[in-house]
């Protein structure tokens, strides 16, 4: 059925038809008609952010915590360019977003008009796809296509750039049911023979491991549940990337912790020593592999991914399976049950005994203190105080992010929101806001660093305006700690510009915004303070003063292999630990 309406009305209608309930945005000249259409309706709630970058991160937090598409609305020119960091972040982490940008009227495009920029040109490399809609008759179709592209296949951000005259123009609206995409039809089901072959390989393996990633989360709760079934049926140990935390429960005996640069000793050693690696929805990123030519030298590798371009990109694999993790894992569970396969019990016993020896190394141990708060201790206490609650954790980027990944334990998918691929400081607060919008009654905590939080601090205003009781838990080490750590390791302890000078008083800052400020600097006071933070049903900035010098371990130094990791209690000359070649890497 088609109906005549203006382009701006079509935008609202299309969003409503796509089931959109929340929209993160910021107005401006080139989107005024859409804002006017928003004014006349009640089905979609608009969340006014304070910076367009934050609109995108908030939409990411919303999408990741709810499994829905996040939607953003910004104006042309500076509105669009401010959104670029968020779009790149969403592309790197495969987060489904639709970002609508206003554009100058079509007759002015290319004239360097006021607030004109080449939005499709600028965002081409940082979106999954983008559109400039020059004619209102294409608008409804393009909007529905944008939602389709954002969430099908490997998810990602899609930009729809709409000139102002198109927003005013009258045209006929078509609903989503009439849209079929001409070219983009990703394959969901894995090849049945390959799935059988994979199961045979698992049954024959003596030292298998499941290496899982964000793809399992993106494939929805069914994928996580099938992963749990498959792990239980086969007894295979499970590790995950930063992006995949929560897909497999941390409480399971089969859980080895996160792998990679700051992963656990047992996870990395098991990756190095395994004879079969089943990579599920992960992409052999450089944070994971370390030195590529020494990466898991003795293993056969199976790679399950929906994106064929992830296969054989960094690491050559023996058996690729293209498909959606949920479909493939479910087929594997069925195949395992029906095929009467089993793993080699004796070999698995030996393997698990080896893993237990690695575990006994207790790689996350740190020197406790009763005078200063150790950052690891702060996360442990935060976890203890919140683990029985409906909790969503976002982070900024730095040491605190890695400590959160190591010390907070996730039992469920979609609870952990962190910028993995791009590593964007300033991600955590808007992401927590997005999660809080999607889950009004949950506890949403941004585990932050004192440097990162200043990058999108202005979003405190958003939290206040929309009554979002997000908690900003700052591990304040008065350093850009991760930068300081690298300078210690790589640059002779010359801490060039990594000291957090002239910090605001975070307690007063919280109050200035209309929120609640708290400070804690004694380990003995921490539990009570955290309890108070949780009890307050308003936005809180919690300034947790932690040890300044603490480094984040274990660490695989750049350019090293998994079995060359440094642990916190090893007395190594850190300068020696990194080769000249490694210093070139990031």
């Amino acid at each position, binding site marked *: 059925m088609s109906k005549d309406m203006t382009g701006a009305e079509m935008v609202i209608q299309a969003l409503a038809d796509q089931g959109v309930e929340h929209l993160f945005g910021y107005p401006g000249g080139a989107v005024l008609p859409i804002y006017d259409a928003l004014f006349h309706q009640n089905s979609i709630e608009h969340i006014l952010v304070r910076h367009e970058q934050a609109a995108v991160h908030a939409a990411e937090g919303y999408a990741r915590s709810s499994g829905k598409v996040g939607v953003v609305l910004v104006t042309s020119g500076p509105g669009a360019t401010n959104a670029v960091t968020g779009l790149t972040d969403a592309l790197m982490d495969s987060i489904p977003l639709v970002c609508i940008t206003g554009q100058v009227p079509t007759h002015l495009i290319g004239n360097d008009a006021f607030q004109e920029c080449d939005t499709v*040109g600028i965002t081409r490399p940082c979106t999954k796809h983008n559109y*400039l809609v020059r004619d209102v008759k294409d608008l409804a179709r393009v909007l529905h296509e944008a939602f389709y592209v954002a969430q099908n296949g490997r998810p990602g951000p899609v930009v729809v750039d709409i000139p102002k005259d198109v927003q005013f123009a009258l045209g006929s609206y078509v609903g989503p049911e009439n849209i079929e995409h*001409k*070219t983009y039809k990703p394959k969901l089901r894995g090849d049945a023979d390959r799935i059988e072959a994979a199961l045979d390989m698992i049954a024959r393996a003596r030292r298998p491991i499941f290496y899982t990633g964000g793809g399992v989360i993106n494939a929805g709760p069914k994928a996580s549940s099938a992963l749990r079934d498959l792990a239980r049926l086969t007894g295979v140990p499970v590790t995950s990337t930063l992006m995949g935390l929560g897909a497999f429960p941390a409480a399971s005996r089969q859980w080895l912790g996160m792998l990679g640069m700051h992963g656990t000793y047992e996870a990395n050693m098991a990756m190095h020593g395994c004879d079969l690696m089943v990579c599920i929805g992960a992409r052999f990123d450089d944070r994971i592999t370390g030195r590529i030519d020494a990466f898991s030298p003795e293993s056969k590798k199976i790679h399950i991914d929906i994106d064929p*371009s992830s*296969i054989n990109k960094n690491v050559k694999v023996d058996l690729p399976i293209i498909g959606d993790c949920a479909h493939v894992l479910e087929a594997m569970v069925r195949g395992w049950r029906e095929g009467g396969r089993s793993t080699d019990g004796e070999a698995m016993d030996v393997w698990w005994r080896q893993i237990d020896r690695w575990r006994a190394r207790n790689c996350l141990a740190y020197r406790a203190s009763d005078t200063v708060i150790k950052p690891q201790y702060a996360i442990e206490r935060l976890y203890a105080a919140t683990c029985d609650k409906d909790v969503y954790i976002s982070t900024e980027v730095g040491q605190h992010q890695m400590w959160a990944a190591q010390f907070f334990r996730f039992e469920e998918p979609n609870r952990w929101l962190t910028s993995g691929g791009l590593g964007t400081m300033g991600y955590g607060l808007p992401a927590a806001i997005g999660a809080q919008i999607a889950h009004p009654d949950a506890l949403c905590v941004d585990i932050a660093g004192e440097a990162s939080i200043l990058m999108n601090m202005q979003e405190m205003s958003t939290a206040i305006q929309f009554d979002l009781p997000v908690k900003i838990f700052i591990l304040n080490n008065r350093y850009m700690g991760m930068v300081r750590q690298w300078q210690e390791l790589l640059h002779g302890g010359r801490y060039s510009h990594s000291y957090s000078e002239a910090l605001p008083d975070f307690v007063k800052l919280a109050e200035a915004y209309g929120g609640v400020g708290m400070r804690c600097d004694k380990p003995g006071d921490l539990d009570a303070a955290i309890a108070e933070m949780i009890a307050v049903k308003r936005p809180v900035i919690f300034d947790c003063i932690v040890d300044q010098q603490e480094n984040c371990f274990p660490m695989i130094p750049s350019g090293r292999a998994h079995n060359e990791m440094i642990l916190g209690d090893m007395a190594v000359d850190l300068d020696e630990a990194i080769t000249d070649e490694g210093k070139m890497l990031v």
Partner: protein
Amino acid sequence: MSHPPERIERHTLSILVDNEPGVLARVIGLFSGRGYNIDSLTVSEVSHERHLSRITIVTTGTPMVIEQIRNQLDRLVPIHRVRDLTVEAASVERELAMVKVRGTGDARSEALRLAEAFRARVIDATTESFVFEITGKSDKIDQFAVLMVPLGLVEVSRTGVVAISRGPEAM
């Protein structure tokens, strides 16, 4: 540790795309953004009714990189199909060039003789110059251009490679 150098291969890719604004920019942006090589690129509409264009790209890289290029192209939204004509099908390749040569006397007649040997046609002439049109595989055109250098080669304009699979099937 040093690895044996991986062998570099030259492949011809044929890409069927929706003929929409920006599609070529997406393809080229992919190559420049990811550091892939483009040895030659041609593009033209091939079906007006179905809005289809065909892009032919000649690229070089290790087998792993070539596979990446193919898969990266394949996931661009407006792309219908990608074929690696070098491995997936027997194919024919041609390129067209226009070659301008300036000279008089012996050099001029020698240029004309060579042009005949290469089945190049004269498509423009003055008393002191020729423009030759030559089609063939790229190496034939390379060779012709080299021969023209001492005879007064002025400039060359080449289309880049177009290619199609042999036999009755479409891509």
